[in-house]
């Protein structure tokens, strides 16, 4: 049995009377790629918001490497090694491409504001390290985000490149666990294929453990070690892609019951 990196234990969340996530248990092993699937409104993004500390669970516990994340601020959770992308891209649009990535190094750099003002040798060294690290993160995507693009504002990037930049930014926080929220949304078939490959490389070369929300079943099939299906905030199936895809409850969640369809 591999070492557990992320443990979600009996987590629940309500918005008023609405139960968004109910008594959810998910484990993710180190080095694993786990996909979360489910119809719209199943609570997938809410799950990410719970892990990253944007919401606080009403019950249950979330452990990273055995230590609880509940009650920490999102930036503290990021510094513990959890990073994410957003379904609706949230880049720093008016900052340059490289600055987007460099900004994410904030949590694991130290130079204070007075040292920055005086540009002390230590601060300058750290700044060079940040830049080198950022360029390394961008180089992960081949030529796409390199060269002249570094100094262009992020809004000038194409949609697909923005998705890539967001992944680059997420990895610049030096995470162990990477949460990708629909990385293939809005991509054309060629780009979707590339994203599938990329997620594999992120695990194999980058060494990240990955939890990914995805609607494109080809992507899910291509990357997942394990699939978790959610519906109405409840885990309805878990296992290999084939197991989950043929699970009657999953089919029902996506397509409805036969009885309901023929009514």
């Amino acid at each position: 049995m591999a070492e557990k990196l992320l443990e979600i234990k009996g987590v629940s969340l309500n918005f008023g009377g609405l139960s968004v996530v109910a008594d959810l248990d998910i484990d993710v092993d180190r080095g694993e790629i786990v996909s979360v699937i489910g119809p719209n409104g199943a609570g997938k993004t809410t799950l990410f918001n719970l892990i990253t500390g944007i919401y606080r669970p009403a019950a249950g516990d979330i452990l990273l490497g055995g230590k609880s994340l509940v009650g920490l601020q999102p930036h503290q959770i990021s510094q513990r090694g959890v990073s994410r992308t957003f379904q609706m891209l949230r880049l720093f649009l008016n900052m340059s491409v490289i600055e987007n990535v460099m900004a994410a190094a904030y949590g694991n750099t130290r130079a204070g504001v007075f040292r920055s003002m005086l540009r002390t040798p230590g601060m300058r060294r750290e700044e060079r390290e940040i830049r080198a690290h950022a360029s390394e993160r961008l180089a992960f995507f081949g030529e796409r985000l390199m060269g002249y693009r570094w100094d262009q504002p992020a809004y000038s990037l194409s949609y697909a490149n923005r998705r890539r930049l967001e992944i680059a930014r997420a990895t610049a926080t030096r995470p162990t666990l990477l949460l990708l929220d629909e990385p293939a949304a809005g991509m054309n078939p060629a780009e979707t294929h590339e994203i599938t490959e990329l997620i594999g490389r992120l695990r194999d070369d980058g060494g990240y453990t990955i939890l990914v929300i995805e609607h494109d079943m080809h992507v899910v099939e291509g990357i997942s070690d394990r699939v978790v299906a959610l519906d109405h905030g409840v885990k309805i199936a878990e296992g290999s892609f084939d197991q989950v895809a043929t699970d009657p409850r999953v089919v029902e969640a996506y397509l409805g019951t036969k009885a309901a369809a023929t009514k």
Partner: protein
Amino acid sequence: MTDSTPHSSGTPATGPAVGQDEWVARHAERRLIRRGPLAPMEERIRAVPWWAWLTLFVGVMCLLPAVSSSGYVRRVGFDTVLYMMLALGLNVVVGWGGLLDLGFVAFYGLGAYSYALLDSNQFHLHLPAYLAIPIVVVIGAIAGFLLGLPSRRLHGDYLAIVTLFFLQLFQTIATNGDSIFGHNVTGGAFGIFTVKPLHAFGHSLTVQHGGVFAVSYYYVALAFFTAIYVALRFVNLSRTGRAWRSLREDPLAAEAMGMPVNTLKLMAFSFGAAIAALTGTLFASLSASVLPLTFYFVLLITIYTMVILGGSGSQRGVVLGALVIGPLLELLRDPNKSRVIFYVALVTGLLVAFRLSRRLGLIVVATLAFGFVCRAIAGAIDHSWVSGSAPGGLQHVVSHWVIIPKHLAGWVPPVTYIGVIAAALLLTLVHGRLRLVLLPPTLYLAAFVWDNVMLTQPDPARYIVLGLILIALMIVRPNGLLGERRVEIV
């Protein structure tokens, strides 16, 4: 620029095909390569490092006292440097942090008052500059921090209201501070008027030399400005600066990427406040007095105008904004110059709205003709209606065109003033030919109001011209003179 050749065929050499968005994304790259005889020069200008520009700028500013020996001009120069410092401070909070701080001038006032208490006869404290200035800066930073505390969870309009309330609080305390538990602290509405100039090691900085503004203060202010500019530039290009701008762009994403948003907000507030307080020490020590109403809405609006005009977020921009607005407000005090500025602003506005088109010519001719006809008719009815004098610049042109009565009836100013506003509002509602027909009479009415009403009241007139400039700017360069192009959602 290693991979700069655009792909001629549909498929790039490596990796899967990326759609035509690649072509769009490379558009800017292709445009970077300039052609023509000016291209090498532009390259060379771009290659000049920032510190060379700054040295040049400060060097030119240093020459001001050599250009003019007038104490008034030098004082305007000094005030402009103070404006530049305030604009730099506000730029930290608004331009980088993205926090709409409407209490900013309270920190300027706080700095001025703190210095006044530390070096005046109020408490008979006379601290030397090397003690007083650091203390005031720390007080400013702490006050900024304290204002930031309740503001951590607020943004946008909520934050604006809370900070505005803080400005009002400062005003109230300063105005009523002559009896705080029976002690006279702030001197009340009359302020403190025994503030000493900056002094250290037995020497004090000369304020006046033979009744004329001495330049030593100007140079001290310029030195402070340069130090602040350089320090802020370094901060902006550090992890703190990047984090501030991330916070402005998207606080949630910044927080998720490991940046402590609340701490960063407090830092931005503290920084802006400390700079404002530092500027306040220079102001108080020069003016020898502090009055509550100096630090109020008018000043707040002026500094915001500078930041917006120059380009919020751009250091060079806000300095330019201060450099334009500061002296402009002084020029507008003088009716001779303000009339020229008014008509130039009017023509510029028309140019912006209509470009160099046939319609523009038509409107100008129609407005001029309308004016001459109106004046001729008015003169024919009663000569005293047009026999008033119009002193100041352009008077020969204006007095033959605008109706300037010898005696203005009491009802005329309010009615025509409201009339201009109503006509301007009407113009926004109508379209097409009707608008073109209504425009000349409206312009003429505006000129009438300006020459008969506003010119005798320079203070509101100044701010109306300021408003006109901002409106024109909003249309031509929505991001300010030197602002970067900004997008909200793409």
